[in-house]
């Protein structure tokens, strides 16, 4: 099933007022721990998971994810290992999995070859924060050919015209960056945020995910009605660092 319809089907569940998507950095602290964290996340009720293939220059990420990327690479995790791990995981759980990474990882692997593998693995979408549509001719052609959805990013600085343009390239859902800056800092879900979300809604028909700075149930609650998917990134990385793997399941279950 395509990502978009999978999301719509999940949203049709009256119990679920909003979907949850979590983020993990592959290889941090290790693939073995990733495996346990994902199990916890799925049992806690997560609807989608984005798996970040680490890159040495994660320009759009904040300190916690930067360090996770770097430690994963220092620990020796390879793109090959990430793909093999993703294959195992996506065969184990019924929820959709996406890859998040920077363009060089695809470029160096061979863009088409990467698409081929991702399709075999069953990956549903790609989030590539440093690939604007202007640079992605080959990439976007391949997303159609291989049936993998390119998730486009809206930012508070995006004009309505730009949102419409991005929306034409995007499929699956739109990732709305909640505020300026990088991942990991707290976001104020205030009036300004409200009008930003209205602008997002008005300029695309795709479901809206909101990420950056979501760390508690209150944050998730305040997104109900404004967004379709709440994205939890840095918070679970910190949770594993501070309280261990077993804290993840209850944390996720408590968000909704």
């Amino acid at each position, binding site marked *: 099933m395509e990502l978009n319809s999978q999301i719509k089907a999940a949203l049709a569940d009256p119990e679920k007022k909003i979907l949850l998507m979590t983020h993990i950095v592959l290889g941090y602290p290790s693939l073995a721990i990733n495996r346990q964290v994902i199990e916890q996340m799925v049992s806690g009720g997560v609807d989608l998971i984005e798996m970040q293939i680490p890159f040495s220059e994660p*320009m759009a990420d904040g300190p916690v994810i930067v360090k996770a990327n770097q430690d994963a690479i220092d620990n020796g995790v390879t793109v090959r290992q990430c793909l093999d791990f993703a294959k195992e995981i996506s065969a184990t759980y019924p929820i959709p999995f996406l890859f998040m990474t920077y363009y*060089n990882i695809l470029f160096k*692997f061979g863009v088409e070859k990467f698409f081929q593998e991702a399709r075999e693995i069953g990956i549903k979408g790609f989030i590539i924060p440093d690939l604007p549509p202007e*640079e992605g001719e080959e990439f976007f052609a391949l997303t159609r050919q291989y049936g993998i959805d390119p998730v486009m990013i809206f930012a508070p*600085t995006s004009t309505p015209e730009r949102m419409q343009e991005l929306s034409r390239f995007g499929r699956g859902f739109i990732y709305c960056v909640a505020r*300026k800056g990088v991942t990991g800092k707290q976001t104020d879900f205030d009036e300004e945020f409200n009008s930003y979300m209205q602008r997002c809604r008005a300029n695309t028909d795709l479901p809206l995910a909101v990420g950056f700075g979501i760390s508690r149930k209150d944050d998730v609650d305040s997104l109900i009605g404004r967004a379709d998917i709440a994205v939890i990134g840095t918070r679970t990385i910190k949770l594993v660092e501070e309280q261990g793997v077993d804290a993840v399941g209850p944390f996720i279950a408590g968000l909704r």
Partner: protein
Amino acid sequence: MNQTTKRGYYGEWGGAFIPEVLYETFRELNDAFAAAKADPAFWQEYVSLMGTYSCRPTPLTHAQNLSRHFGGGQIFIKREDLNHTGAHKANNVMGQGLLVKKMGKKRVIAETGAGQHGVATATMAAKFGFACTIYMGEEDVARQRPNVFWMEKLGATVVPVTSGSKTLKDAINEAFRDWVTRMDDTHYVMGTVCGPHPFPEMVAWFQSIIGKEARVQIIDQFGRLPSRVYACVGGGSNAMGVFQGFLDDAGVELIGVEAGGKGLDSGRHAARLAGRDASAGVAQGYKTMFLQNSDGQMTDTHSVAAGLDYVGVSPILTDLWQQGRVRFAAATDREVMAALDMTMKNEGIIPALESSHAFVQAFKEAGEMGSDEAIIINMSGRGDKDIFTIAHAFDDPSWKEFIRKKGKEYGA
């Protein structure tokens, strides 16, 4: 320059791989730059600023003793060390400063490796009344301490960067992270001809002042064009600056000299185009030849010269290299010290460690040329900033004694 149809590309290199949050910022910057480039009054204002605040035109010095020593081509040195703040970096920074004023922004940020670009940016910010933050890899903070001191005294905040390899590329990432947070009031003064479009084109434009002057000067002093022009290549801004004066002269050979570090076979160097370790990639907002592993992870680079210690290289130079218009060579740390020593003793001139790379290659080749031929070495900066590194490399006993005494004075 071989600008192909796609905007911001040089052959297959360049582009603008930027996060969406900066899309509008880049649109504004492209507009402001296009307007400046199309306005002859802007260039005049720039030249007049550089003539009154810096030392432009910088001299072209005939190095007679070195020329005699090698017994070949006549060696001319383009003296970017005599710019205000001691390097070519001032050219780019003052130009971008004028652009920042036009855009109405109030804060500037920059990355720096050797610290020369940071000092130049802090100077420009002081003069124009901008707030200023400089990102600098922790390793570079340690090895270029005098420049850190001056940046702080000039009123800038210096942020040591502890991620990644703690050098120039990491400082660039950190500057981008600042920019995506505060793009409304902040301009990122990129220090070299790298990064997303329009930076390569913009920085090359401001630095072209070097080549424009050098071309007039060599014809004036020597009567004709040089046979070869040498420049060191970190990101490539001083090289692009001087090369642009001669790009259309097919008879002038252009040579870029990269950091050979401990040697091209050692794995500890920063030679992207002269070595065999680099491959095509996309990082830091642009496509070029990067020193990276087979997964696309950037590798650690090494050079005695902080300003050349970088994984990528200008997309414009990569294109010129691919076309065969610019030849690339590398100089090792050891060769650099020898060339530096020789230049000081013979000419009374102290090149920066970065610039000394260009001297190495010129010295290797000068002897094989006729005495009726001229070469130009672009001396991108002066060596004062490198006093600790150079003294250490020379293992200078009286300097060590001085440091010991100072240490005692501070209770170390």
